[in-house]
């Protein structure tokens, strides 16, 4: 194997009252890889991210991140190990400024007393400046986040995750509701940020997927349907039948 495996999901199952949203799934993500997960509605894509970040508890199977088993770990512990998650609808703090949104996401002063006595230092300011430039918001730092456009809010949430410098970044439909030029910029952003981390993206926009994906995983009814390069997946008759054909 050329690259180190960062995330290994094995025999993962979650059942909601007997309905298996994710069913005996295996998935391996390598270091510095940008993986895109596609699949029809209800395939279990978002549920898979929920399982990895801890929003949903697994019924069975294992999720290993580097050397740690995650399935029983509290959410904030998983984040501290290096897993970042962006939600489908932009989830930012509307009542805080862009600067404060990024500051609050900075991984220092994470305990109650740590946050009470936390002081802004040059390190934090440099980091905020760096991230703000990356997400195209360096001119908007003092604005309340509620004044941002939808696309800018999506970027801000990605920026909030970048503040934590996660080793695994999971993005749920990052370009949903974005204009063409915003999509272009987001694709650039994603290729830039996966240079030193692994990224999992859920996306429906096939042109966008083609532009960014290293490898593509297709889910269907909670199971793995196909995996490989975009060309490989697109040529797969099963995938065409359940998803791309429509």
């Amino acid at each position, binding site marked *: 194997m050329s690259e180190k495996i960062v995330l290994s999901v094995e025999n993962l199952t979650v059942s909601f009252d007997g309905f298996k949203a994710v069913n005996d799934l295996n998935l391996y993500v390598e270091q510095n890889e940008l993986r895109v997960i596609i699949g029809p509605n209800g395939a279990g894509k978002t549920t898979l991210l929920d399982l990895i*970040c801890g*929003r949903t508890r697994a019924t069975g199977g294992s999720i290993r991140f580097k050397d740690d088993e995650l399935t029983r770990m*509290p*959410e*904030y512990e998983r*984040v*501290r190990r290096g897993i*970042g*998650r962006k*939600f489908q609808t932009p*989830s*930012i*703090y*509307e*009542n*805080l*400024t862009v*600067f*404060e949104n990024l*500051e*609050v*996401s900075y*991984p220092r*002063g*994470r*305990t*109650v007393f740590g*946050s*009470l*006595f*936390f002081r*802004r230092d040059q390190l934090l*300011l440099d980091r*905020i*400046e760096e991230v*703000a430039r990356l997400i195209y918001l*360096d*001119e908007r*730092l*003092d*604005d*309340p986040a*509620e*004044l941002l456009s939808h696309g800018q809010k999506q970027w801000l*949430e990605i920026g*909030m995750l970048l503040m*934590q410098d996660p080793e695994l970044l999971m993005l749920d439909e990052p370009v949903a509701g974005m204009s063409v030029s915003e999509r272009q910029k987001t694709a650039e952003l994603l290729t830039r940020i996966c240079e030193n981390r692994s990224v999992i993206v859920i996306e429906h926009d096939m042109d966008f997927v083609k532009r960014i994906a290293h490898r593509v995983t297709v889910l269907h009814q909670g199971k793995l349907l196909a995996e490989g390069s975009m060309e490989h997946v697109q040529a797969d008759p099963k995938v065409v039948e359940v998803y791309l054909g429509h």
Partner: protein
Amino acid sequence: MTITPSTPKNALPWWRAQLPLLVMSAVILVALPLALDLFRLNLVGKYLTYAFVAVGLVLCWGYGGILSLGQGVFFGLGGYAMAMFLKLEASDPESTKIQSTPGIPDFMDWNQITALPALWEPFHSLTFTLFAIVAVPGFLAFIIGLAMFKRRVGGVYFSIMTQAIAAILSILIIGQQGYTGGVNGITDLKTMLGWDIRTDSAKYILYYVNAGLLIAAVLLGQWLLKSKFGKLLLALRDKEERVRFSGYDVAAFKIFIFTLAAMLSAVGGAMFTLQVGFMSPSFVGIVPSIEMVIFTAVGGRLSLVGAVYGSLLVNFGKSYFSESFPELWLFLMGGLFIAVVMLFPNGLAGLTDSWREWQARRRARDLPRPTGAAPAPTAGDDTPPPSNLRAEGGAA
């Protein structure tokens, strides 16, 4: 571009930024004592003890989004702890020699209790009492918080639980008459380490101690809200999931702010006992707990200073109306709460903010418009942005 963390708001001179607090201090430290006779001032002192609860609720509810309908529990526990100490001092064998068991509080004697209960023993010590005033309610809040927030009980369910706890405690106090004084509470409090708290000079001194502690509580709240903790509090009120998945143990933050609010309430309760001279279950149960939320809502749940004015105004209204139209008061109180929620959700502080905003907008319209200027919402030095975060500046 280089980042400067200071926003234009921070650039104001300190006295300008603190004007609302300075005005409030002047009102309670100078204006009210000069304008009112001692009887009325003592009433104000009583109202200001509720302001401790309101300040705690601003932090816990306004900023943290945790609506507790049981703050009377903590107010009452603080008050009872103080009352127990004062009652023991008032029950020396000399002044209780007509009882069948001299040396214990009178209500115990009436209830055929013949020895001081072990629970009461440590309250002979003032040091222990002062410690217990904050520690007992703080510990109870910590346990409640631990049980609720770790299990992710929140919102309405949490409010209902706190209300149930308020009901339980008041029923318990009323039921255990021999240990607590029952429905009458603990009365006939006289001296504190020999210092008679019923004299005029003692009432003035206690009023000022109370006012000083209240200003300190507001300053503590301001410091807290200015820190990263304060921003996190707002963040978890609005987007709890996002905070959790940014690596924070959300429950720990909620437990902390709920416990702190409980301790502030308890200080208010202790000062109530000292100034009013008794403590009873009517300050513990559901009704007083909800009234305390109304004080906060009327003053402005995002304004620490507003909470103090809210406590004063609603209570002045209460004593005025309940003297003139006693049967109407409860309806008025309910109506007031509905009006606040529906018409001015940020209370009095929110109203002064909107007024200043409107003024600033009018000023901006009268000024000749600079050519090509972007409609930047943060451009004006005096213009508060539309965010309700700025409510703290209000109530001047």
